[in-house]
């Protein structure tokens, strides 16, 4: 089972929000859909959900058009969408029934999820009486309640405190372990890195980088060479006209290859500089993101 997007485009008047996007998400895979605000992530998600009709291209699930495939989707929207004047239990049961659950199944699942997310005491409260973080938990329950095959999470961690962000991360990991196919859109690159197998970086509706995270990092032109912070190291780098960035604990130098790193090492050792740290790091997703779409 896989989600395939082929040459997908969406234009709003003269503005092209998504331009010839092609990608594939395999079953059980976690796919990161990344990009700056307005890059076309939400429009792509809305087209997958059938909320927005594409101008061109098509989306299939397991070889069948997604509109007719009857795939069960759980969607967590970027801007939370709940009936604030409804009770938590009533609303979740309503969403569950709309996804084909019986009242009994829905009630049981609601109790389990409320307990899992540590908010059982709010079962009979109005959504408007809950804190923002707890409302987000309810939204996550509404997304996962009916055990969907495809989970689409649009900025799932925004506005969460670190404890709740960890709880959300745990829950998402559990869903991944259950074999769910997940599409994740987020600006928190460290979390995307920790979850995603494949990513797609969008810029003005077009995919600028796409593929497995490892391959993308391997192919990335620059790597980071990390050295100790010391005056003699800095002086030698300045003498050798080597650009570097200094922070509190280390000096970072952008290098293109291992030979370039060895050449810097030799240069420093030849003048008798003492080094306690010399390591080459792969670029972070954040760096690639800034480089490619910044």
């Amino acid at each position, binding site marked *: 089972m896989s989600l395939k997007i082929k040459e997908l485009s969406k234009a709003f008047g003269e503005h092209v929000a998504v331009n010839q996007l092609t990608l594939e998400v395999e079953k059980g895979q976690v796919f990161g859909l990344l990009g700056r605000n307005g890059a076309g992530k939400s429009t792509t998600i809305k087209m997958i959900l059938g909320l*927005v009709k594409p101008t061109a291209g098509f989306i299939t699930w397991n070889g069948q058009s997604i509109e007719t495939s009857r795939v069960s989707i759980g969607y967590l929207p970027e801007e939370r969408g709940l009936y604030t004047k409804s009770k938590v239990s009533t609303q979740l049961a309503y969403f569950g029934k709309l*996804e084909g659950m019986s009242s009994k199944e829905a009630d049981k699942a609601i109790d389990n999820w409320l307990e899992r997310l540590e908010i059982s005491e709010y079962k009979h409260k109005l959504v408007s009486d809950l804190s923002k973080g707890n409302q987000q938990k309810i939204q996550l329950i509404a997304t996962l309640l009916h055990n969907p095959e495809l989970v689409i999470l649009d900025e799932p961690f925004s506005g969460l405190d670190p404890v709740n962000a960890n709880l959300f991360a745990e829950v998402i990991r559990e869903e991944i372990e259950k074999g769910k196919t997940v599409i994740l859109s987020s600006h928190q690159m460290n979390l995307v890195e920790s979850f995603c197998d494949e990513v797609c970086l969008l810029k003005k509706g077009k995919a600028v980088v796409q593929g497995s995270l490892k391959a993308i990092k391997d192919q990335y032109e620059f790597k980071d060479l990390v050295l100790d912070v010391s005056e003699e190291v800095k002086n030698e780098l300045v003498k050798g006209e080597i650009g570097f960035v200094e922070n509190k604990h280390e000096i970072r130098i952008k290098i293109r290859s291992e030979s370039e790193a060895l050449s810097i090492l030799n240069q420093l050792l030849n003048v008798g500089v003492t080094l306690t740290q010399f390591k080459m790091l792969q670029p972070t997703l954040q760096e690639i993101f800034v480089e490619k779409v910044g």
Partner: protein
Amino acid sequence: MKKFFYVFWFHFRESVLSKVSIITGTVIFFIMIAFFGISHGLSQNEKEVRATIIEEQSEVYQLDRSQLNELEGEVSFTFRPINELDTARAEVEAGDMDQVLVVQETNGVPFITHIYEENRHLDMVSMVSHLLQQMYLEQVLIEDEISPAVAERLLMPIEVLDEPIRSPEAMMQSFLVYYVFGFALYMLIITFGQAIATGVVSEKSSRVMEVMISKVKPIWMMFAKVLAVLGNAIVIVLIGCCGVLVAFLLGWLDLSRISIFGAGVDLSVVGTEVVMAAIIFFILGYFLYGMMFAAVGAMCSKMETLQTMSMPITILVMIPFFMGMFASDTSLLMQISSYIPFFTPFVMFNRLIANETHLIELVISMVLMVISIIIVGFFAARIYVNGVMYYSEKTSFKDIKRLLKR
């Protein structure tokens, strides 16, 4: 279909149990009880008019007490001599007496002085004046030696045969019944139509719409929502009826004494066909306007925009409501308007009460309304489907055209 039912039930339950509905229902329930209770209380407190008749000593003009019995229960009479006139006047001024009639005579011609504080009791005055007129005539006949036969011929009243096609009373009755129905329909359409539009806008602005339309087809959502709000309207009307029932059980409901603006309402005008037509016109009118409100709600992203956008519909409801009240039931304007589906619920109903329509006309107007509901429903659904995912600060005619096309 199951999903349609879930959406309907959720919105019906939520709207019936909402604070606004509970407060509205409670207020209407107590207003109904209070209305009939107050009417009942006032009717209980209606006292007999206290009247004093003061007669000057006269051999001819002495009122026959027994003839005044006709006003028994309405007026209680006391008779006093002329020397108590000042006392009686003082009693009226002090509020201890309501009316004083002083019967006097000048040159053999009787006259009446009517002393009262604010309200004249016309029936009493005309009865006393009529009795004195009779006495005066008899006196003239005797004095001038006119034979009874001549007198009879002279006094023969010209008969007026009253054959009104539509009496002013009947017109007043139809106006009053229309006023009650028209006002109720107007209020229900505006209040609950706005509730539909507000519900859609709040779903859009809270983005719950995005979650919903990935689960249910927007068209189902629209019809389920319109139906749910109608259900809520019916519940509130039934709560009002419960208030009337309570008033009835308390013995406060006197159908013969119901009045609007001080005019008594003759409920015999309201037959089964009028009640049936009222229900049908309410449901058809509600659907027609309700779907328009839903479409308008789908076009707006903010509550502030909704007020401006829904104004044309509000005006469209106001026009036929006021036409029904102020235009002549028989005018060509009313006849034509009664076939315009947006006006039909008000204007045709008005013509029905005024007895100015035939069954076939009613049926035609209802069929036209059903056709219009289907057409409006088609376009409203199109706007709704495209509009629920449309977010814009302002909505121009160009946008509406685009929403209809997409």
